[in-house]
């Protein structure tokens, strides 16, 4: 993109107009002929808030048009009212304007997608319309705008001699973005891929929230831990030992109890056996005694029968009262036995029964002895059972319940201690966490490391600047480096700002022109033209503290002019200068002269015709 024409117009006044061609353009003239005003006009059309310089001559004018052309030949004209406001874009030459043009705002804000100057002009200059630049260390980005680019193609007479970086200039709030803009021009890569870190205040707020939460958690924990006076670890070991010994004791007691219970069961079985035997013997004895009673009663009866039979025989037999026959032995109605036989039988029977009775008594005695033995065994078993039960009830059961309750107490204590230890651990963790948050949030959060400027590209740029300086006869072998701290060039080991105004101005010009040439040669983004105000004439009104501001060596001035004559048509360099160029240069470039009040006939007096 190159600058073609600037025009001021107003009603009832002839338009003020100046045109530029490809390659080098020199606009020389006396003071107060509107040269610097043109620069302000450019600044204004490129989106400045207001026209910073007002000259009385310009008061009748109301409208500013600036025409640009891209290398392929298409035109674009910007229009803006001198009093301010937004812009209109005409995609045609200035003289071909017929309509109102497309309205664009100077600069959109936030996430708005509205068309603004940058989104129109940058694509026109073959640059990415939505290039992103990192604007801070956190990695947040902003758009590349015309305003950011301004210092590298529009250099006014104050900036020219300024000690500040030609890239960053006096831009303090957007220094990073300007540095990144420079990196973009060097490499052609923007910062779109960068993922922003979180904002410091958000981090701080989050840390505060975390700290608050931790404090809330810490407070009850600290109280709990403080209320626990013992050293938890020590006591846990002690409690564990106590639990171990009680468990052993409990096991022993339980084993004893099991043994006693087993004995008790055996004894109960023994008792039941004895009882069964006692009952059984008792029953058998009952039978034997019954038998014995029978023997006794039988003997009585035998006595009785024998006696009865004896007397009965003595009685006379009578005749049967029914049939009146003697009731003889054969008589149906008589007893079968003869009483005498009964008497003898009874005696024999009695002796047998006596023998049986004697035997039975012996058996009964034996049985009764055995019964006594069993009764003794029963009593022993009962005593043993009583002893075992007493041992269980009085000794083992209380011991077991005592041990169990002690164990339970110890386990409760163990759980408590475990809890205390956990509390302590948690407390330690929280305190560590708290300390970590406090450490990271009070100190500077680790600033992200950002890639330095691309070194090869930087080297190539420095070579281009070296070429410029060689042309300008600075020396035959100038050595140009780029100081990334000052963001300025260092020539032959000496920084730009350490030179006087004149040299600073020359080096500033060399930097800007070198950058333009670099872009053309390596096909990197650039607006395509530069405008330099007073590169050779030190700004007279600037109260410089530097004393070494001697005039620019004449040799360099000669070289400067000469090199302008050799500027290729691929680029456009516009030099605004007080000094007139040598004749051969003026002939070789597009040259305009504002003669001022001393203008001779045919000479143009100033930018604005009077």
């Amino acid at each position, binding site marked *: 993109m190159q600058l073609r024409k600037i025009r001021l117009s107003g009603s009832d006044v002839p338009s003020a107009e100046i045109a530029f061609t490809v390659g080098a353009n020199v606009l020389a003239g006396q003071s107060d002929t509107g040269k610097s005003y043109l620069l302000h006009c450019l600044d204004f059309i490129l989106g400045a808030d207001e026209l910073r310089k007002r000259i009385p001559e310009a008061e009748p004018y109301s409208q500013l048009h600036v025409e640009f052309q891209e290398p392929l030949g298409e035109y674009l004209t910007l229009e803006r009212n001198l009093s301010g406001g937004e812009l209109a874009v005409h995609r045609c030459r200035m003289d071909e304007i017929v309509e109102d043009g497309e309205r664009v705002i100077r600069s959109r804000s936030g996430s708005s997608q509205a068309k603004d100057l940058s989104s129109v002009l940058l694509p026109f200059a073959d640059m990415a319309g939505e290039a992103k630049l990192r604007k801070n260390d956190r990695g947040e980005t902003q758009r590349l705008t015309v305003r950011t680019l301004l210092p590298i193609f529009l250099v006014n007479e104050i900036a020219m001699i300024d000690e500040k970086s030609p890239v960053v200039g006096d831009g303090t709030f957007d220094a990073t973005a300007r540095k990144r803009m420079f990196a973009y021009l060097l490499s052609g890569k923007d910062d779109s891929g960068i993922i922003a870190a979180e904002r410091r205040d958000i981090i701080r707020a989050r840390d505060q929230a975390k700290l608050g939460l931790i404090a809330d958690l810490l407070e009850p924990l600290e109280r709990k831990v403080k209320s626990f006076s013992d050293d938890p670890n020590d006591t846990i070991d002690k409690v564990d030992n106590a639990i171990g010994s009680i468990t052993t004791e409990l096991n022993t007691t339980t084993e004893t109890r099991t043994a006693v219970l087993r004995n008790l069961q055996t004894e109960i079985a023994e008792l039941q056996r004895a009882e069964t035997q006692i009952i059984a013997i008792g029953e058998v004895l009952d039978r034997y005694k019954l038998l014995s009673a029978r023997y006794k009663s039988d003997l009585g009866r035998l*006595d009785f029968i024998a006696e009865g039979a004896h007397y009965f025989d003595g009685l006379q037999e009578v005749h049967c009262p029914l049939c009146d026959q003697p009731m003889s032995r054969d008589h149906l109605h008589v007893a079968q036995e003869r009483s005498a036989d009964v008497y003898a*039988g009874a005696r024999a029977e009695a002796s047998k029964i006596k023998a049986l009775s004697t035997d039975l008594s012996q058996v009964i005695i034996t049985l009764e002895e055995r019964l006594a033995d069993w009764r003794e065994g029963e009593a022993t078993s009962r005593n043993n059972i009583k002893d075992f039960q007493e041992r269980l009830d009085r000794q083992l059961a209380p011991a077991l319940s005592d041990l169990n309750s002690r164990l339970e107490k110890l386990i409760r204590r163990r759980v408590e201690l475990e809890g205390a230890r956990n509390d302590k651990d948690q407390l330690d963790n929280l305190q560590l966490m708290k300390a970590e948050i406090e450490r990271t949030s009070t100190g500077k959060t680790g600033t992200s490391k950002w890639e330095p400027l691309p070194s090869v590209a930087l080297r190539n740029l420095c070579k281009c600047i070296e070429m410029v300086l060689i042309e300008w006869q600075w020396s035959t072998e100038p050595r140009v480096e780029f100081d990334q701290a000052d963001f300025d060039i260092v020539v032959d080991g000496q920084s730009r700002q350490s030179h006087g105004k004149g040299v600073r101005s020359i080096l500033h010009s060399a930097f800007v022109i070198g950058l333009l040439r670099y872009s053309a040669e390596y096909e990197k983004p650039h607006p395509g033209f530069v405008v330099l105000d007073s590169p050779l004439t030190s700004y007279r009104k600037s109260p410089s503290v530097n004393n070494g501001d001697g005039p620019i060596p004449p040799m360099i001035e000669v070289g400067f002019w000469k090199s302008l004559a050799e500027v290729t048509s691929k680029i456009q360099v516009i030099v605004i200068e007080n000094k007139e160029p040598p004749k051969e240069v003026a002939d070789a470039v597009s040259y305009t002269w504002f003669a001022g009040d001393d203008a001779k006939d045919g000479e143009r007096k100033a930018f604005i015709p009077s």
Partner: protein
Amino acid sequence: MSSDLRRKSRPFNSPLECGLRMLFILTAQAERFADLQRLVNYDYLLVHSGDIPDGPKSLHPDVPFRGNELLVKRDLVHAGLTAMFSRELIEKSFTIMGIMYRANELTLAFTKLLCSAYADDLRARSQWLVERFGDMPDHELEIFMGANVGKWGAEFDRFTAARDLEL
């Protein structure tokens, strides 16, 4: 015949023994008559007096299921009475109540001759028997005996523990 022989070899429960017991019972109730059924009942009660509450100790052992004795005594008692009657030791009358038996003058005299311990026991128990049941009408006595015949001696049915005896 063999059963006859065996009965001869054992003098117990012979008509003679039973008849002699009848003499003591009839002596004890003096002038009163008694029929065969009453005398059958009396014969049981006389030797098993212990089965009656507050009765004297039984003269015969308390063998199991002795109640059944009552059911088989009728013939024996009848034979006993006949044997005694053949020596005129009792009086036998045919009345509207049936055949009734009663002591006569010989009865008391004869029983006085018998003086073994067993005979003394029979005398004492006969006295108790008549005092206890003498005034009870025939049918009431029947009911009383019928109600108890199954009970007497039935306590022996749980004679089981002897099986566990270790010999």
